[in-house]
Protein backbone atom coordinates (compact mmCIF):
# COMPACT_ATOMS: atom_id res chain seq x y z
CA UNK A 1 0.00 0.00 0.00
CA UNK A 2 1.24 3.50 -0.81
CA UNK A 3 2.55 5.64 2.02
CA UNK A 4 -0.14 7.73 3.67
CA UNK A 5 0.23 11.03 5.53
CA UNK A 6 -3.15 11.51 7.14
CA UNK A 7 -4.03 7.97 8.14
CA UNK A 8 -2.41 4.81 9.44
CA UNK A 9 -3.77 1.45 8.32
CA UNK A 10 -3.37 -1.77 10.29
CA UNK A 11 -4.69 -5.09 9.12
CA UNK A 12 -6.69 -7.28 11.46
CA UNK A 13 -7.24 -10.33 9.30
CA UNK A 14 -9.49 -9.27 6.42
CA UNK A 15 -10.34 -6.00 8.17
CA UNK A 16 -8.44 -2.75 7.69
CA UNK A 17 -8.35 -0.64 10.83
CA UNK A 18 -7.71 3.01 10.04
CA UNK A 19 -6.57 5.58 12.58
CA UNK A 20 -6.11 9.29 11.98
CA UNK A 21 -2.71 10.98 12.29
CA UNK A 22 -4.23 14.41 12.94
CA UNK A 23 -6.01 15.05 16.22
CA UNK A 24 -7.67 18.11 14.70
CA UNK A 25 -9.09 17.50 11.23
CA UNK A 26 -9.64 21.11 10.23
CA UNK A 27 -7.05 22.18 7.65
CA UNK A 28 -8.64 22.21 4.20
CA UNK A 29 -5.59 20.94 2.34
CA UNK A 30 -5.11 18.13 4.84
CA UNK A 31 -8.79 17.24 4.58
CA UNK A 32 -8.42 16.91 0.81
CA UNK A 33 -5.45 14.58 1.35
CA UNK A 34 -7.39 12.61 3.94
CA UNK A 35 -10.30 12.17 1.58
CA UNK A 36 -8.07 10.85 -1.20
CA UNK A 37 -6.26 8.45 1.13
CA UNK A 38 -9.59 7.06 2.33
CA UNK A 39 -10.98 6.78 -1.21
CA UNK A 40 -7.82 4.93 -2.30
CA UNK A 41 -8.51 2.24 0.30
CA UNK A 42 -11.55 1.04 -1.61
CA UNK A 43 -10.94 2.33 -5.14
CA UNK A 44 -7.28 1.46 -5.52
CA UNK A 45 -6.53 -1.09 -2.82
CA UNK A 46 -9.82 -2.99 -2.97
CA UNK A 47 -10.35 -3.19 0.78
CA UNK A 48 -13.74 -4.62 1.67
CA UNK A 49 -13.97 -4.31 5.46
CA UNK A 50 -12.88 -1.07 7.10
CA UNK A 51 -12.96 0.29 10.62
CA UNK A 52 -12.35 4.02 11.10
CA UNK A 53 -11.04 4.37 14.66
CA UNK A 54 -11.52 7.96 15.86
CA UNK A 55 -9.68 7.57 19.18
CA UNK A 56 -7.11 10.20 18.23
CA UNK A 57 -9.62 12.72 16.86
CA UNK A 58 -10.34 15.70 19.11
CA UNK A 59 -11.94 17.97 16.51
CA UNK A 60 -13.27 17.80 13.00
CA UNK A 61 -14.91 20.38 10.76
CA UNK A 62 -17.90 20.00 8.50
CA UNK A 63 -15.51 19.70 5.56
CA UNK A 64 -14.12 16.56 7.19
CA UNK A 65 -17.66 15.23 7.59
CA UNK A 66 -18.10 15.80 3.87
CA UNK A 67 -15.10 13.62 3.09
CA UNK A 68 -16.42 10.88 5.36
CA UNK A 69 -19.72 10.97 3.49
CA UNK A 70 -17.87 10.80 0.18
CA UNK A 71 -15.92 7.84 1.50
CA UNK A 72 -19.11 6.11 2.63
CA UNK A 73 -20.54 6.51 -0.89
CA UNK A 74 -17.48 4.84 -2.39
CA UNK A 75 -17.62 2.06 0.20
CA UNK A 76 -21.20 1.32 -0.83
CA UNK A 77 -20.39 1.59 -4.55
CA UNK A 78 -17.66 -1.05 -4.11
CA UNK A 79 -19.85 -3.30 -1.93
CA UNK A 80 -17.49 -2.85 0.99
CA UNK A 81 -18.38 -2.40 4.64
CA UNK A 82 -17.52 0.47 6.97
CA UNK A 83 -17.82 0.90 10.72
CA UNK A 84 -16.77 3.89 12.81
CA UNK A 85 -15.48 3.40 16.34
CA UNK A 86 -13.96 5.09 19.41
CA UNK A 87 -15.70 8.40 18.80
CA UNK A 88 -15.33 10.59 21.87
CA UNK A 89 -18.52 12.28 23.15
CA UNK A 90 -17.85 15.76 21.75
CA UNK A 91 -17.19 14.35 18.28
CA UNK A 92 -20.22 12.05 18.52
CA UNK A 93 -22.27 15.14 19.24
CA UNK A 94 -21.20 16.59 15.88
CA UNK A 95 -22.48 13.43 14.18
CA UNK A 96 -25.70 13.60 16.20
CA UNK A 97 -26.36 17.29 15.47
CA UNK A 98 -25.97 16.65 11.74
CA UNK A 99 -27.97 13.38 11.98
CA UNK A 100 -25.04 11.47 10.49
CA UNK A 101 -25.61 8.88 13.18
CA UNK A 102 -28.33 7.66 10.79
CA UNK A 103 -25.85 7.26 7.96
CA UNK A 104 -22.89 5.61 9.64
CA UNK A 105 -22.62 2.41 11.65
CA UNK A 106 -20.98 3.60 14.87
CA UNK A 107 -19.65 1.34 17.61
CA UNK A 108 -18.21 2.26 20.99
CA UNK A 109 -14.87 0.58 20.51
CA UNK A 110 -12.72 -1.20 17.97
CA UNK A 111 -13.52 -4.65 19.32
CA UNK A 112 -17.25 -4.08 18.78
CA UNK A 113 -16.54 -2.76 15.28
CA UNK A 114 -14.40 -5.78 14.37
CA UNK A 115 -17.08 -8.11 15.70
CA UNK A 116 -19.71 -6.89 13.22
CA UNK A 117 -17.49 -7.06 10.15
Amino acid at each position, binding site marked *: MAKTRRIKVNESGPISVVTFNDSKIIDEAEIQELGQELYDLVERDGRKKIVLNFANVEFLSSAALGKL*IGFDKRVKQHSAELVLSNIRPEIYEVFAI*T*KLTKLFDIKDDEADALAVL
Partner: protein
Amino acid sequence: MAEHDWSWTVRTSFPSRLGAHDDCMREVMANLEQLGWTGRDLFAVQMALAESLTNAIRHGNRNDESKLVQVECRASPERFWMRVEDEGVGFRPEKVPDCTTDENLQRCGGRGLTLIKAYMTTVQYNDRGNCVTMERIRTAEPAP
Protein backbone atom coordinates in the same frame (compact mmCIF):
# COMPACT_ATOMS: atom_id res chain seq x y z
CA MET B 1 -24.47 43.62 22.17
CA ALA B 2 -25.29 44.01 25.88
CA GLU B 3 -22.80 45.74 28.16
CA HIS B 4 -20.31 43.24 29.48
CA ASP B 5 -16.87 43.42 31.04
CA TRP B 6 -14.81 41.94 28.21
CA SER B 7 -11.36 40.68 29.16
CA TRP B 8 -10.01 40.50 25.61
CA THR B 9 -10.96 41.89 22.24
CA VAL B 10 -9.49 41.68 18.75
CA ARG B 11 -10.36 43.12 15.41
CA THR B 12 -8.62 41.71 12.36
CA SER B 13 -9.04 40.85 8.72
CA PHE B 14 -7.53 38.40 6.28
CA PRO B 15 -7.71 37.64 2.55
CA SER B 16 -10.17 35.08 1.27
CA ARG B 17 -7.81 32.18 0.87
CA LEU B 18 -8.40 28.92 2.73
CA GLY B 19 -5.91 28.73 5.53
CA ALA B 20 -5.65 32.50 5.88
CA HIS B 21 -7.93 32.28 8.91
CA ASP B 22 -5.64 29.88 10.80
CA ASP B 23 -3.73 32.55 12.74
CA CYS B 24 -6.97 34.24 13.80
CA MET B 25 -8.36 30.94 15.04
CA ARG B 26 -5.21 30.10 16.95
CA GLU B 27 -5.19 33.51 18.65
CA VAL B 28 -8.84 33.27 19.68
CA MET B 29 -8.49 29.74 21.04
CA ALA B 30 -5.31 30.59 22.95
CA ASN B 31 -6.96 33.59 24.59
CA LEU B 32 -10.05 31.61 25.51
CA GLU B 33 -7.92 28.93 27.13
CA GLN B 34 -6.12 31.63 29.12
CA LEU B 35 -9.52 32.85 30.29
CA GLY B 36 -10.27 29.36 31.56
CA TRP B 37 -12.50 28.06 28.76
CA THR B 38 -12.36 24.27 28.51
CA GLY B 39 -14.21 21.19 27.33
CA ARG B 40 -17.44 21.51 25.40
CA ASP B 41 -17.51 25.30 25.63
CA LEU B 42 -14.10 25.56 24.00
CA PHE B 43 -15.04 22.95 21.42
CA ALA B 44 -18.21 24.88 20.62
CA VAL B 45 -16.36 28.12 19.93
CA GLN B 46 -13.77 26.36 17.81
CA MET B 47 -16.52 24.81 15.72
CA ALA B 48 -18.35 28.12 15.24
CA LEU B 49 -15.10 29.88 14.38
CA ALA B 50 -13.98 27.25 11.89
CA GLU B 51 -17.34 27.08 10.14
CA SER B 52 -18.08 30.81 10.03
CA LEU B 53 -14.62 31.81 8.84
CA THR B 54 -14.47 29.17 6.12
CA ASN B 55 -18.03 30.08 5.06
CA ALA B 56 -16.97 33.71 4.69
CA ILE B 57 -13.92 32.73 2.63
CA ARG B 58 -15.50 30.06 0.48
CA HIS B 59 -19.12 31.13 0.11
CA GLY B 60 -19.17 34.81 0.98
CA ASN B 61 -16.06 35.95 -0.87
CA ARG B 62 -15.89 32.95 -3.28
CA ASN B 63 -12.20 32.35 -2.51
CA ASP B 64 -11.35 35.72 -4.09
CA GLU B 65 -8.09 36.65 -2.40
CA SER B 66 -8.67 40.32 -3.19
CA LYS B 67 -11.66 40.28 -0.83
CA LEU B 68 -11.25 40.49 2.90
CA VAL B 69 -13.00 38.80 5.78
CA GLN B 70 -13.40 41.15 8.75
CA VAL B 71 -13.49 39.54 12.18
CA GLU B 72 -14.14 41.03 15.59
CA CYS B 73 -14.04 38.91 18.74
CA ARG B 74 -14.63 39.66 22.40
CA ALA B 75 -14.12 37.25 25.26
CA SER B 76 -14.44 37.00 29.00
CA PRO B 77 -14.44 34.04 31.38
CA GLU B 78 -18.23 33.88 30.92
CA ARG B 79 -18.93 34.89 27.31
CA PHE B 80 -17.58 34.81 23.79
CA TRP B 81 -18.87 37.15 21.09
CA MET B 82 -17.88 37.28 17.43
CA ARG B 83 -18.78 39.15 14.28
CA VAL B 84 -17.68 37.93 10.84
CA GLU B 85 -18.27 40.00 7.72
CA ASP B 86 -17.42 39.23 4.12
CA GLU B 87 -17.64 41.38 0.99
CA GLY B 88 -20.06 39.13 -0.82
CA VAL B 89 -23.61 39.78 -1.97
CA GLY B 90 -24.95 37.92 1.05
CA PHE B 91 -27.41 35.09 1.37
CA ARG B 92 -30.68 34.11 3.03
CA PRO B 93 -29.96 31.64 5.85
CA GLU B 94 -33.54 30.41 5.80
CA LYS B 95 -33.06 29.32 2.17
CA VAL B 96 -30.17 26.98 2.95
CA PRO B 97 -31.40 23.38 2.70
CA ASP B 98 -31.74 21.50 5.96
CA CYS B 99 -28.79 19.12 6.02
CA THR B 100 -30.51 16.80 8.50
CA THR B 101 -33.36 15.65 6.25
CA ASP B 102 -33.14 12.20 4.71
CA GLU B 103 -32.90 13.65 1.21
CA ASN B 104 -29.95 15.88 2.13
CA LEU B 105 -28.13 13.54 4.51
CA GLN B 106 -25.68 12.32 1.89
CA ARG B 107 -24.78 15.73 0.54
CA CYS B 108 -21.10 16.42 1.10
CA GLY B 109 -21.64 20.03 2.17
CA GLY B 110 -24.13 22.32 3.82
CA ARG B 111 -23.62 21.52 7.50
CA GLY B 112 -21.80 24.63 8.67
CA LEU B 113 -24.84 26.72 9.55
CA THR B 114 -26.47 23.85 11.44
CA LEU B 115 -23.32 23.39 13.51
CA ILE B 116 -22.96 27.11 14.23
CA LYS B 117 -26.57 27.32 15.37
CA ALA B 118 -26.22 24.23 17.55
CA TYR B 119 -23.12 25.42 19.36
CA MET B 120 -23.74 29.12 19.85
CA THR B 121 -26.21 30.68 22.28
CA THR B 122 -27.30 33.31 19.75
CA VAL B 123 -26.70 33.71 16.01
CA GLN B 124 -27.89 36.69 13.96
CA TYR B 125 -27.40 37.72 10.34
CA ASN B 126 -27.70 41.23 8.96
CA ASP B 127 -30.35 41.94 6.34
CA ARG B 128 -27.92 41.58 3.45
CA GLY B 129 -26.62 38.26 4.77
CA ASN B 130 -22.92 39.05 4.56
CA CYS B 131 -22.39 39.55 8.28
CA VAL B 132 -23.03 37.11 11.12
CA THR B 133 -22.89 37.93 14.82
CA MET B 134 -22.87 35.18 17.39
CA GLU B 135 -22.36 34.69 21.07
CA ARG B 136 -21.79 31.79 23.39
CA ILE B 137 -22.50 32.01 27.08
CA ARG B 138 -20.27 29.54 28.82
CA THR B 139 -22.12 26.64 30.44
CA ALA B 140 -19.35 25.40 32.71
CA GLU B 141 -18.55 27.37 35.85
CA PRO B 142 -15.61 29.76 35.30
CA ALA B 143 -12.64 29.04 37.55
CA PRO B 144 -12.63 31.20 40.73
